[in-house]
């Protein structure tokens, strides 16, 4: 489990294909494009959201006694339509049903709760199991019709009898009409009561139970929109300090805010920014420095940011520069103009930590994803593809040839498929199981247990 990774170097860890979910055809329906992936806190449940507004939850089967060294598979647990397309009549704008983010609430009872959001509306969903139903009502027939009272001669208490397991998803709260701009993040506070939602210019604080009001805690909208120079790109609460959150910007800065300081956190407590390397200046410097994701480490001492070409690890105590920088696909730096033309430069890659914060992972193009081991300072590239998907087959590290001579098994930069991108990845919080989303498929890999 958690400590298997500490035992050896990354080269000892062998990642194996476990499962792939989703349609096999190359013709991808737009509604099936996966837009978010998230494990719950125990790792037992894995949720995906798609462009069609649906949420699919997979549940890990318990380990079987017959095969103790094999982890349980993830199978569909619940599927439901979370958001529908809407129309804003005032602005003549369609509101997409695409699920931007899913976040699980910490489990308090038998039911599971998650927040899912599209561009404008956040919903709290309750997912609960029903495996019994009451039978033998005194006053009602089996089909629900009431019996004629004169025929009732005895008193009978209904008995709960087993039935086939039914998993029900019901919307418990709808948090609407609080965002003028497009919501990019939601984050649940460690206080178990509140959560934040962030759009391009504002961050709102909600109570999980209260839908008719929220508190605005960050507002970077300038008085004159012509003066706009940056937008909020991601926001997250600190994992254990309930007063602290961070938000990243399109300018490559991260601001850490303390809600105890004032009601409106427009003045940051800390500003994290690395000076730009003047040698790398180009037309596209601003776009590639825009941060697409920010994630606190599980221990709360670090945070990770993803910009177009790199992943950076920041020590929360040091604002001047990141403590670690990892190049995801530096070979793309000379191709920024083409990537601008085909829109790939606007792709918003996400990143994630493993359970003990020793490894970070992020996606790239050609269905590649990258892992960076912080301790051993090693990195590896893997590919999620149907060809490498025989059961329990070991993933082979991939190499991209950047120089003139291409070695055997290397892939040249020019043959990369930029339509195949891995934007969303997730790491099981307690185990070496990862979920990687290609356009419309979800791949699950796990490390080989010996």
């Amino acid at each position: 489990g958690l400590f298997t990774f500490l035992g050896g170097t990354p080269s000892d860890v062998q990642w194996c294909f476990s499962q792939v979910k989703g349609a096999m055809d190359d013709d991808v329906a737009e509604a099936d494009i996966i837009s978010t992936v998230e494990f719950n806190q125990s790792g037992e449940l894995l949720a995906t959201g798609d462009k069609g507004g649906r949420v699919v939850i997979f549940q890990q089967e318990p380990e079987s006694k017959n095969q103790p060294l094999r982890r349980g598979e993830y199978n569909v647990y619940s599927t439901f339509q979370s958001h529908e397309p809407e129309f804003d009549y005032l602005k003549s704008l369609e509101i997409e049903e695409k699920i931007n983010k899913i976040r699980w609430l910490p489990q308090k009872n038998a039911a599971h709760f998650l927040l899912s959001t599209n561009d404008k509306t956040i919903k709290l969903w309750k997912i609960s199991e029903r495996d019994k139903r009451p039978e033998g009502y005194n006053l009602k027939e089996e089909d629900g019709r009431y019996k004629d009272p004169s025929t009732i001669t005895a008193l009978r208490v209904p008995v709960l009898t087993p039935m086939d397991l039914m998993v029900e998803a019901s919307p418990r709260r709808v948090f609407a009409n609080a965002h003028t701009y497009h919501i990019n993040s939601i984050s649940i506070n460690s206080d178990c009561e509140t959560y934040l939602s962030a759009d391009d210019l504002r961050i709102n604080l909600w109570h999980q139970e209260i839908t008719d009001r929220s508190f605005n805690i960050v507002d970077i909208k300038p008085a004159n929109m012509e003066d706009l120079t940056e937008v909020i790109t991601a926001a997250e609460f600190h994992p254990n300090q309930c007063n602290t959150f961070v938000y990243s910007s399109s300018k490559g800065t991260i601001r850490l805010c303390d809600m105890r300081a004032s009601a409106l956190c427009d003045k940051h407590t800390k500003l994290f920014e690395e000076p730009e390397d003047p040698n790398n200046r180009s037309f596209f410097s601003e776009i590639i420095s825009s941060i697409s994701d920010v994630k606190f480490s599980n221990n709360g001492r670090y945070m990770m940011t993803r910009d177009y070409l790199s992943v950076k690890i920041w020590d929360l105590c040091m604002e001047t520069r990141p403590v670690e920088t990892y190049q995801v696909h530096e070979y793309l730096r000379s191709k920024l103009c083409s990537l601008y033309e085909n829109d790939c430069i606007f792709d918003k890659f996400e990143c994630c930590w493993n359970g003990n914060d020793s490894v970070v992972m992020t996606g790239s193009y050609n269905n590649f994803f990258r892992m960076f081991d912080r301790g051993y300072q090693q990195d590896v590239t893997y590919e999620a593809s149907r060809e490498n998907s025989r059961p329990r087959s070991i993933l082979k590290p991939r190499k991209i040839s950047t120089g003139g001579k291409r070695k055997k098994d290397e892939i040249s930069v020019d043959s990369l498929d930029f339509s195949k991108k891995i934007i969303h990845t997730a790491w099981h919080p307690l185990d070496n199981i990862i979920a990687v989303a290609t356009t419309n498929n979800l791949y699950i890999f796990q490390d080989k247990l010996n």
Partner: protein
Amino acid sequence: MEVNVEARRILAVSISKLYASRSQRGGLRLHRSLLLSMVMRSARDIYHSSRESEQPNGEQPATEEPMDTNCDPKEKARLAPDLADTSADMAPGVSDKLDESDCDITEDKENLSPAKQSRKRRGKASAAPDFLPSKRARLEPGEERYAAPVGSCRAGVGDYRSALTLNQVIPAF
């Protein structure tokens, strides 16, 4: 100059992206619009500064002033013919809100999409109220008033933030 050609191409690509994003499902994305406008700004500034360095009098202004009051009159004369047709008949209150992209590529009509050529009529609120002093530069003795070039067209590549208006780029929310 190669940089010049690339800058123009990027500008053209950016404008077509901006135009295409208007018909996107879910409405205009603020983040994307902002990034597009920044690329356009870079491309426009590099385009103009590379054109400038090609001129015999390659002197660049040390600081950038939105209303160009510090400019060398010789440079004004050089630029004026390029921009005379777009700004000569513009009222002072309107010229500083001139759409940058329209101004810069009037000579490059083949790359200009028809929709962009129409000049949006500014609402009453955005025209300068008449109790405010005129924004026209105070002339030194001996100077003549030339057609006012748009503020930041000649800015260096460095800091160009203050002058750019994003009227056409960032929609009024």
